[in-house]
């Protein structure tokens, strides 16, 4: 007769694990290798995922850093100083900061994005200072902030969705429409000091019926939904 050391319940002789808490049974017939094998069965999958992320990050890092080096060398060899290369360099730096923080910093998505946003803001401040123009702070920074906030919102909503399918696609379409409105608003305010929306309204107007159609299809096909249970009063 075996007794689980965690739950204290009585187990049958042929049980190697407690069915309640999955604690391995330490009986004479169980070798330590078997116990180790059972208790570590979940670990390889997690490691595999992390390894894949790391490889992707390494590839991204090589591409971005070599891009920075290449543009810098070309710019310096032709113009003799840093001029146009500041733009691809700063974009590569910002993308690199997002990729690195997402992969290397094990924290919540909120803090990862916040840290990447702070680094990107510093990059934009530097660009602003080096080219002596105000658009990096007055246009690029607000757009970057809007993209971050909408991205976080999408992530939050998707995390809380029980069924993920066409509803995620419709969410992305709505986000694109909102982002277009925000981008045009920021640009128009920068140039004419008034928020005047033109093309973004057309984009939104086109996307909304598409979203409605996708949502309709989603609800029609989702588990043969019984509307009475959803709308009962």
């Amino acid at each position, binding site marked *: 007769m075996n007794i*689980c050391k*965690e*739950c204290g*319940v009585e187990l049958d002789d042929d049980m190697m694990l407690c069915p*309640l*808490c999955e604690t391995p049974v330490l009986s004479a017939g169980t070798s330590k290798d078997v116990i180790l094998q059972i208790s570590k069965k979940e670990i390889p999958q997690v490691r595999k995922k992390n390894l894949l992320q790391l490889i992707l990050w390494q590839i991204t890092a090589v591409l971005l850093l070599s891009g920075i080096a290449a543009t810098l060398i070309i710019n310096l060899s032709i113009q003799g100083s840093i001029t146009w290369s500041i733009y691809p360099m700063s974009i590569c730096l910002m993308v690199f900061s997002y990729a690195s923080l997402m992969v290397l910093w094990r924290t919540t998505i909120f803090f990862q994005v916040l840290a990447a946003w702070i680094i990107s803001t510093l990059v934009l401040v530097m660009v602003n200072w080096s080219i002596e123009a105000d658009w990096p702070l007055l246009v690029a920074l607000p757009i970057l902030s809007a993209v971050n906030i909408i991205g976080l919102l999408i992530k939050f909503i998707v995390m809380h969705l029980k069924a993920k399918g066409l509803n995620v696609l419709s969410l992305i379409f709505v986000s694109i429409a909102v982002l277009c409105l925000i981008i045009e608003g920021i640009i128009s305010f920068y140039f004419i000091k008034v928020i005047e929306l033109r093309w973004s309204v057309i984009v939104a107007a086109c996307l909304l019926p598409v979203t409605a159609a996708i949502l309709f299809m989603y609800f029609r096909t989702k588990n043969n939904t019984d509307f009475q*249970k959803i709308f*009962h009063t």
Partner: protein
Amino acid sequence: MSKAHVTLETGAIVQPPARSAFWMRLDNAAKIYPAVQNEELTAVFRLSCILKDRIKVKPLLEAIHAIEDRFPYYKVKPKKGFFWYYLEFQNESMPLRPDLTTPCRAFKKDDLIFRILAKDNCLSVEFSHILTDGGGGFEFLKTLLLAYLRACGVSLDKEIPALKPYDVPSVEEFEDGFSKYFQKNIPSPKKKPKSFHLPFKLNDQPRFNVLMATLPMAEIYQKSKEHHATITEYLVAVYLYALQTIYNGLSNFKKRRARKIFRIQVPVNLRRIYPSKTMRNFSLFVTPEIDLSLGAYSFEEIVKTVHHLMQLETDKKLINKMIARNVGAERNIWLKNTPLFIKSLILYLTYSIAGTSQYSGVITNIGKVTFGQADKFIDHFVFIPPPPNKALRVNCGVLGFGANLVMTFGNITRSKELEREFFRFLVTQGICVKIIKY
């Protein structure tokens, strides 16, 4: 049984046999819980059976398998509708877990809202109040326990009154008793003034802790009879007396600020009043009280008051009034047509502000239980009430078995003063109180 759809009073459609999909409305008592529950205020209660022998896992798994299809109305998950939450059947196995942490923990979002727990000699079930009350939960435990004993090879010659594992669940078991016995055009009971609350500081999270004691049934029965009261009435009187003692110990400033009405919420199993077989929530409360603004009460005065108030309030006509108030509110045209997210906010705010403001404490007495022939395998039963909220702070569950009564105090404060006063008083009455480890 035929596969024909069965329409309940509630409007939900049930398709026996048990494994087919169905959904149910939340019953009247359950409607508040999805809006107010959280990690601390879990609305989860526990019923435990402490056996004389260590639990054997294999027969337990066989017993769970045997009753798998017997309680389909518990294999449901709460889902959000547009106006109300509803319960949707999930064809999942009943969850058996090791009993290793704090009792009455909250259920995770995607879990079934009941669980079976086992540790050493103790077999427990925990239910969310969204599903059922102590009466329904105990019927489930009874069936599980008998199935377990049979799986252990125990032969029970005489029939023990419990639901049979292989019977098809009847439609009455699914029903919402409140809606069934609701009568229109009955006036609501009068609103009661706010009552005294314990002034103790709250524990750090996780707050909930439990203190348990056994009392000899014969002694407590004898004392109750001396005061011409039932055991429940006697215990409620002791509770009120302990609260009065705590009040008397407060500083003059705190006394002046504290409310003078001491009122206890005592759940009543309505299955004993109405001929209902429902396995869902079907209990309401009577609220015996004393008013200290009239002066201090002796224990004899408290017992007398509690006895008469409880006899009066358990009258069927007054219970009908309470059902009419609760179901009437749910059927209010404005409330029922309000979208769920607004409704949840209203319910949350209402509960936060006024939820338990009318009560100083709760005593739930499941009653004396017996399993006939199977009694010899059981040491005792325990009922742990759901963690009390921040206003109530302490509550109490009572369950009698064999020669003992087991009392459980659920407490979220740093003080054990109420429990101390309660048991001290019983000891002064000559009742032997033994604190036990859970």
